[in-house]
């Protein structure tokens, strides 16, 4: 009797990538539901398309790279990346926009580097940024929540838009700048924030509808923390960074700088903090490093939002911080046992 020599430990694995990814998908549900509730079913179409395209690209890439297809396809990492990518798109987007974006996400963001685990940049953000600079018109056409525009969009309407069968002029009336956009343009024209906020797109704290969607992401984020899928360092540091920056400038001039709570509940700060910046592959990996990483993103978000060229800034902030990760990790190594 001769045994194959394998190395300990010999315990059955208690964890898997699939389990981790499933937790993320579960955590995405409350925010996604709130999103669809306020802004119509378009987002669900985007998610569905993105997931299907992502799996297609993943399978093609694995095939071309001569890697085992099924284990990777079923680890759900592509589903999570696609879902997050879809949430970055305007709620109504043509199908080809999703295709191009997810193509870049999966191929240029992930597989050219060697697939899952080897990509230095957050793949969903890579795809999003490519679209943002290539298709600025499509990527900045956002729509009002139904409660503001008064129009109730059916699934059929949304599908018609996605696949090019809709009357664009009719839709134009429903589109609107996002609350962050309005603040940016308004402040640029020296209008006081208290005045800008009289516009119907604003809710009590952030943008109307958006504040509830953010709350949904927050609930999901707590789920991720509770199940120990992610740890507190990145979200706390990121939110803390945004809040601290916003608070400082808010106290400097209340009419030129929006409130910390507005910054927190508008745009993608909450989903960024819990779902995007926490992508483990591209984030810092030490505890202290994650705090630095989170703070850096928070700081960059505020800087780009207020003084940069884009109203929201999660993608750029995350990609810039991704670049710093090797540096951050090297200089934030923990003290090891027995080290002075």
């Amino acid at each position, binding site marked *: 009797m001769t045994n194959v020599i394998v190395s300990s430990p010999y315990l059955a694995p208690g964890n898997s990538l699939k*389990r981790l990814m499933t937790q993320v998908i579960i955590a995405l549900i409350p925010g996604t539901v709130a999103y669809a509730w306020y802004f119509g079913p378009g987002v669900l179409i985007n998610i569905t398309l993105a997931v299907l395209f992502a799996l297609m690209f993943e399978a093609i890439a694995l095939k071309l790279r001569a890697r085992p297809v099924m284990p990777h396809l079923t680890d759900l990492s592509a589903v999570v990346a696609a879902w997050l990518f879809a949430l970055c798109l305007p709620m109504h987007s043509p199908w080809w926009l999703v295709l191009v974006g997810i193509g870049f996400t999966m191929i240029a963001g992930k597989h050219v580097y060697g697939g899952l*685990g080897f990509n230095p940049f957050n793949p969903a953000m890579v795809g999003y940024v490519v679209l943002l600079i290539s298709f600025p018109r499509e990527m900045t056409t956002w729509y009002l929540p139904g409660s503001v525009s008064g129009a109730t969009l059916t699934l059929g309407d949304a599908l018609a838009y996605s696949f090019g069968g809709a009357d664009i002029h009719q839709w134009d009336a429903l589109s609107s700048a996002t609350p962050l956009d309005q603040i940016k343009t308004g402040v640029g024209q020296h209008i006081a924030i208290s005045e800008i906020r009289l516009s119907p797109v604003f809710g009590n704290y952030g943008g109307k509808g958006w504040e509830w969607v953010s709350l949904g992401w927050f609930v999901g984020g707590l789920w991720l923390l509770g199940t120990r899928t992610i740890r507190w360092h990145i979200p706390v540091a990121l939110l803390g960074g945004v809040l601290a920056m916003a608070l400082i400038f808010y106290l400097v001039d209340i009419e030129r700088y929006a409130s910390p709570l507005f910054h927190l509940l508008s745009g993608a700060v909450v989903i960024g903090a819990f779902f995007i910046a926490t992508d483990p592959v591209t984030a810092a990996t030490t505890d202290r490093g994650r705090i630095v990483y989170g703070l850096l993103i928070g700081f960059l978000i505020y800087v780009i939002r207020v003084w940069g060229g884009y109203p929201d800034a999660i993608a750029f902030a995350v990609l810039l911080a991704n670049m710093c990760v090797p540096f951050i990790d090297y200089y934030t190594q923990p003290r090891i046992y027995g080290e002075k």
Partner: protein
Amino acid sequence: MRTKLHQFHGGLHLQGHKAESLSRDLQQASLPERLYLPLRQHIGEHNKPLVDVGNRVLKGHAISASTSLIRAAVHAPTSGTVAAIGDYPVAHPSGQTDTCIVIDVDGEDEAATPFIPDLQQLDAREKIELICRAGIVGLGGAAFPSSPKLSRGKVQGIDTLIINGVECEPYITCDDMLMRHYSAEILRGVGYLQRILNPKVTLIGIEDNKPEAIAAMTRALAHAQLAAAEIVPIPTIYPSGGEKQLIQILTGREVPLGQLAFDIGLFCQNVGTCVAIARALEQDQPLISRVVTITGDNIREPGNWEVRLGTPVRHLVELAGGYLHGDSSHLVMGGPMMGFSLQGDQVPIVKASNCIMVMREQTMAHSLGYHDECIRCSKCTEVCPAQLLPQQLYWHARAGAFERAHEYHLFDCIECGCCSAVCPSGIPLVQYYRAAKSEIRAAQKALIKSDRARLRFEFRERRLLLKKQQEEERRRLKREALQKKKVQAGGEIPIADPVQAALERVKARKLAQQEDSQ
């Protein structure tokens, strides 16, 4: 007095799987027909055999020993005849063979006449000498010879003696059984350690999942004549039985990098070693047996046996009722976290063997083949008791960037296996570290070797050069001396060139002929 407990970083709550082997009481294993005793059963150099094939040995006779500082003799576990000395499979992660002394057991179990000293008359150094002669090594798993450790500890000065009855690894119950059955003997061994080392405090750490062992030890302590000793139940969390972790739990102190426990006045010894010390000093009985757990999902009657060293695993398997499902078993020596696979059931029990896990092949199948890639989730960092960054170590080890891995403290990894156990990608991390460590060690060895070769070469070159210079110098001196001699003999004699002379002769003759013809 109640010792305040501390925590170490990380660790895991694991399924104990201890009930299986605790369901039967400790049994004495019968003698097999043959015993296989490897020359090396401890950390240190190989022993040299002291017996020849055909010699009759008695139980307790030393059969192999060495003269190096870190040494542990091996003794005949029973009486019999030396049948062979040669290479046989042994318990080693590499699966290689090693030199063993094979004893044909005669079944008499005839013991050598013991020499029982008056312990009151012996000083610490003499006690250590007796422990050395008994071939005692740490029985917790590392098998480091006890006597050099005691000598060092004695020199350094010890304030806290820590007795390790933690046994944190799943499946293993031999120390638990030992504490239930030999508590008095353990404490007598502790007493001898106290007299050798003079610690201020003695702490006996036992995981709180062993209430019976704790009770037995507490009862025995009430009757023992021990100064300032305390039984300390500690929370069950793997790897609390690791020496550094136990020190942290009991004292809150860390062993500084590059130092050992006795450098900071601490001395750890396993409960099994205490029994061996007591037997060696009181009965002149060398280390010839130990308690071994045999358990797993493919053994009929898991339990604990007191086994003579050298007993083949197969014999133990038979004692435990044999394999449950055919014999396609995966055998592991040690526990599921830090043990290693055996090549087969012919390997013998050695001093370090605390447990034999007999597992079905399919329960082990996951350890092989495909694994996902690291996603840097750092679950491994959370559980690492050495507070390392296993994900970074993996990255560098995998890339062959061994210097980088070294920088990330690869050699401070205690190979407890926590990181591998929690990895969502199922990466056998420890396997990568072991491979990297051995490659670095091999490279260092090769470097030392090539350095030596280079030095030898350079020395030879220098030597040859020197010889050449000396030769030339000698010749020069000789030439000079010759020259001087000639000058003294009467001026310099012009050197005649025969060719020139011949040419001139020819010239003269031609000239004469021309003159003749005119």
